[in-house]
């Protein structure tokens, strides 16, 4: 099977999955109890003419499939509807907050990759004391969920240390970097520990493999053996896992954004769900599902292409 048809098939699978997911999201929220028109009218007891006008404006009397098609078309053309709470376009609400959340995800992702790979390699190549210490530390960190780490960091930094702000998103690059450090750490910690563990296992496995023994027997310097033979071969599983954790970050932003009062997409999703602002919930869940699935597919495809031993036909 050649590369192009492989990539095409993966892309087609991705599109089909997203299509099915969009149908599920729309269907699920369509089936929600309560009258969306009354929600949109916002008042205590809107009169029937107002309700009828709203129903006409938002096409609420159309059959289900027509409404779905209308929503999907709007989504694809960049117009995912109107928020019932904010009374503005959902696209604008998302655009205002996208930069903050993207910054947070990138920040946490960079922390995970740098610290996870570094600590994992150190644990595998360092002495037994280093390895044991790091194993205990990563086991503890791996079980610490973002909401626990966030609470701990808020306590430490708000009442004890005061080095970094614990509320808001800041403005400008430096302000963002300062404000989003603690949220990024809270989001990244357990994922970092996971990547570090996988890295350690992968590097260890390579260290004990026959080809590394051969390289050492040939008299290659240790640094060259590690760089050329150990790390390169350990890269594939580590890359897969890093990609998957990166995909998981999108959902985790909701927790740290809520905890640290960051006005981003995650907190917008949570608050919209609490207020039953369906247009926002639909658009944001579709966005998160798309990002999550796209990253997963890319990682899957990349590891299949890089390692010919991974079966490509599933």
């Amino acid at each position, binding site marked *: 099977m050649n590369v192009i048809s492989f990539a095409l098939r993966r892309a087609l699978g991705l599109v089909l*999955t997203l299509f099915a997911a969009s149908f599920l999201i729309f269907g699920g929220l369509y089936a929600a109890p309560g009258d969306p028109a009354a929600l949109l009218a916002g008042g205590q007891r809107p009169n029937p003419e107002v309700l009828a006008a709203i129903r006409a404006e938002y096409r609420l009397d159309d059959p289900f499939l027509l409404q779905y098609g209308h929503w999907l078309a709007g989504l694809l053309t960049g117009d995912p509807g109107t928020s019932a709470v904010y009374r503005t376009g959902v696209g604008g609400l998302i655009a205002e907050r996208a930069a903050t959340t993207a910054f947070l995800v990138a920040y946490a992702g960079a922390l995970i990759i740098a610290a996870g790979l570094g600590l994992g390699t150190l644990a595998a190549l360092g002495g037994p004391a280093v390895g044991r210490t790091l194993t205990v530390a990563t086991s503890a960190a791996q*079980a610490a*969920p973002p*909401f626990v780490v966030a609470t701990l960091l*808020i306590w430490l930094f708000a*009442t004890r240390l005061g080095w970094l702000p614990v509320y808001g998103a800041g403005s400008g690059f430096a302000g963002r970097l300062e404000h989003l450090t603690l949220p990024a750490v809270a989001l990244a910690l357990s994922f970092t520990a996971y990547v570090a563990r996988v890295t350690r296992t992968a590097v260890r496995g390579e260290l004990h493999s026959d080809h590394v023994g051969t390289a050492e027997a040939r008299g290659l310097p240790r640094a060259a053996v590690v760089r050329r033979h150990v790390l390169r071969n350990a890269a594939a599983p580590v890359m897969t896992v890093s990609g998957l954790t990166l995909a998981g970050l999108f959902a985790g932003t*909701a927790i740290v954004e809520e905890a640290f009062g960051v006005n981003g997409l995650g907190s917008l999703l949570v608050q919209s769900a609490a207020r039953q602002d369906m247009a926002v919930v639909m658009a944001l869940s579709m966005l998160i*599902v798309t990002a*999550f699935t796209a990253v997963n597919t890319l990682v899957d495809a990349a590891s299949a292409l890089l390692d010919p031993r991974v079966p490509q036909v599933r």
Partner: protein
Amino acid sequence: MSAIHAERVPAVRGALRRAAARDPLLAAAGCVAALAVAAAVAAPLIAPYDPAGVDQLEVFGPPSAAHWLGTDDLGRDVLSRIIHGARPTLAGPALVVLVSGVLGTALGVAAAWFGGRTDAVLSRALEVVLAFPGLVLAVIAAAVLGTGFAAPVVVLSIAYVPVLARVVRAAAIREAHLPYVEALRLQGASGPTICLRHLLPNLAPLILVQSTVGFGYALLDLAAVNFLGLGLQPPAAEWGLMIADGRSAVLGGHPGQALFPAAAVVAVVVSVNVLGERLADRFGLVEA
């Protein structure tokens, strides 16, 4: 009936203690898990105070002989709330694991056994569910069904099906190609008999380990939903919700209300993970 021969008769007395000495981590994990389950089961008997008992004179009391873990912003006993909170905190993930375990096993075995068209359709459907991170699905459920205990438990039960189903499917395909299955078929055993009486018992260790791991993840996901305010509502005692409730107290310099339940979450999840790891070792399974 064959007689049992042993070089040395193993002493029953002290067996538990020796096992604990061999693997102190496992012993500690077992103790924490047993303690948490005991607290959940016997909460009204153990808890020293009413978890909802407000005492205006005891607001933010420090840990003391009367209140081991202090009191919260309404003067409620934190220890009693953690003990009572163990009920929803542990019952939720237990239900998730049970429901997703049954569904995932059934779908995984069905996909492996029938293969072909059935397998393709099931795998595609599972892939769509897999596109939703569990937490996002729980948030959507809160928008559709409102807050409470049931909605997040139901959707997480669905969200956890694909992972288990994939693991079971892969193992069942390997198992179904083993000679004993062919032998049973030649003896005239029917498909359901082979699957239920022979295939499932052989898959049981795998399902048990996967469910143990899943329990930890489900606990974290459900606690996160409650932390976000989309699950149980105050004044309910649940660990994730208690952490969220304690956030303003943390800023006011009274961290106990949030940090003690946080410690409980971490302790239980760590011990569940250790138990899962040891179970996997015992059964000779490799973590994927």
